[in-house]
């Protein structure tokens, strides 16, 4: 299946909204949605059942088509954007809502052990975990930082798995150097606050 051009996407949207041809959207994007759901479960180390793909996939289409295709009508293709990416966004949000409710330990008992994938633990990550423990003592001071500083510290130290500077640069549309500078200033500021308050 080839990627649609901007004009083809506009025509697809027009036919779906104005001529009620919802099956065009289903035909074009169902496999994409299913693939994303599966990969995101795998990436987060959560066992994926066939029912999950079906349930979440249907939830995605509910969001796209509900209220007379309200979300589709609000979608505005601008330069550099694509409908496929917008659908990836909705799918990712739906997966996040779903996985937040899953009891992973209970689910793992349902899956044969040979199908479970263990996440490797690298030495670099172990070192970050040590730093993370120290920083936990001063997490209360995070609100004194700017939003970009807080975000980068969260991604680098606190989220599971922690992200590399390169990952964070890609995620936040910055250069690696810019991310490093923000992280460096943030940690320095936290340490100052830590010191001022007698720790």
């Amino acid at each position, binding site marked *: 299946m080839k990627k649609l051009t901007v004009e083809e996407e506009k025509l697809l949207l027009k036919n779906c909204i104005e001529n009620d041809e919802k099956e065009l959207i289903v035909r074009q994007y169902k496999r994409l949605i299913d693939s994303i759901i599966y990969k995101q479960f795998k990436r987060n180390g959560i066992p994926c059942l066939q029912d999950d793909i079906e349930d979440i996939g249907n939830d995605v289409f509910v969001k796209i*088509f509900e209220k007379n295709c309200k979300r589709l009508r609000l979608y505005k293709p601008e330069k550099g954007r694509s409908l496929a990416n917008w659908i990836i966004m909705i799918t990712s949000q739906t997966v996040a809502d779903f996985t937040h409710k899953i009891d992973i330990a209970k689910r793992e008992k349902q899956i044969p052990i040979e199908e479970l994938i263990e996440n490797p633990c690298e030495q670099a990550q172990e070192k970050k975990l040590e730093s993370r423990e120290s920083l936990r003592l001063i997490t209360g001071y995070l609100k004194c930082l700017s939003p970009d500083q807080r975000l980068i510290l969260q991604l680098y130290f606190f989220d599971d798995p922690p992200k590399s500077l390169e990952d964070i640069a890609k995620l936040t549309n910055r250069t690696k150097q810019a991310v490093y500078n923000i992280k460096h200033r943030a940690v320095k500021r936290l340490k100052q606050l830590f010191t001022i308050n007698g720790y």
Partner: protein
Amino acid sequence: MKSKCIETNLFAKYVEGCFSDREREQVEAHLSVCSRCRQVLVNAHYSMDEIKLSELEPASENEIQAVMEHFGFSKKLEKIYKWMQGSLSLETHLFPGLLTMPGLTRKSSESAAEYAYILFEKKMGDLDIHLYAEKTQYHTFNIWISVSKQSIKAHNVRLVLIQEQGGIISRPLVGQYEHLKNMSFGSYNFIIKQNAEEKGRCHINFKNEEVIVKDDYS
């Protein structure tokens, strides 16, 4: 207090890198306090990088039917297309070279209001059928039909049109388009074959006000 989670359009703009400074600040302020949205950011970003659309097949008819039935949307068996006036615009992207087809009465800048046209696409198996029809001044119409697979002209294709009042047209599709001239209004059974095997059929009723396409006929 955590702000409401990021709205999809804004979040998509952030992930794609199409945002203003103000939008970046708004999104990052929320991301810094919401673990769920950070998870979404990471997953969406990697999905956009990893997914190769060219490797994914379109959903099968059974899969589409299952989704549509889940919502209680029956797959429409009948579609109605109104004859349109004016110059061809968005639709020409479906038909590369549409405006240069021989015999076409409409050009994009002419007094195109005179001759009404209709253009639609239809899937039959793995083939994409594009049909463009134009009324003539003699109360007839001309049709141009193109058959392709993944944007490439399909080979060994035969078009069969059976008029309900009698008359059969059966032609191999040789060039980029098959051109049928001075067709009478009325009902036709429209069949596409490839390598002598039927790929699909439908019923098309060409009326003066509209064209009705039905997926199946008896």
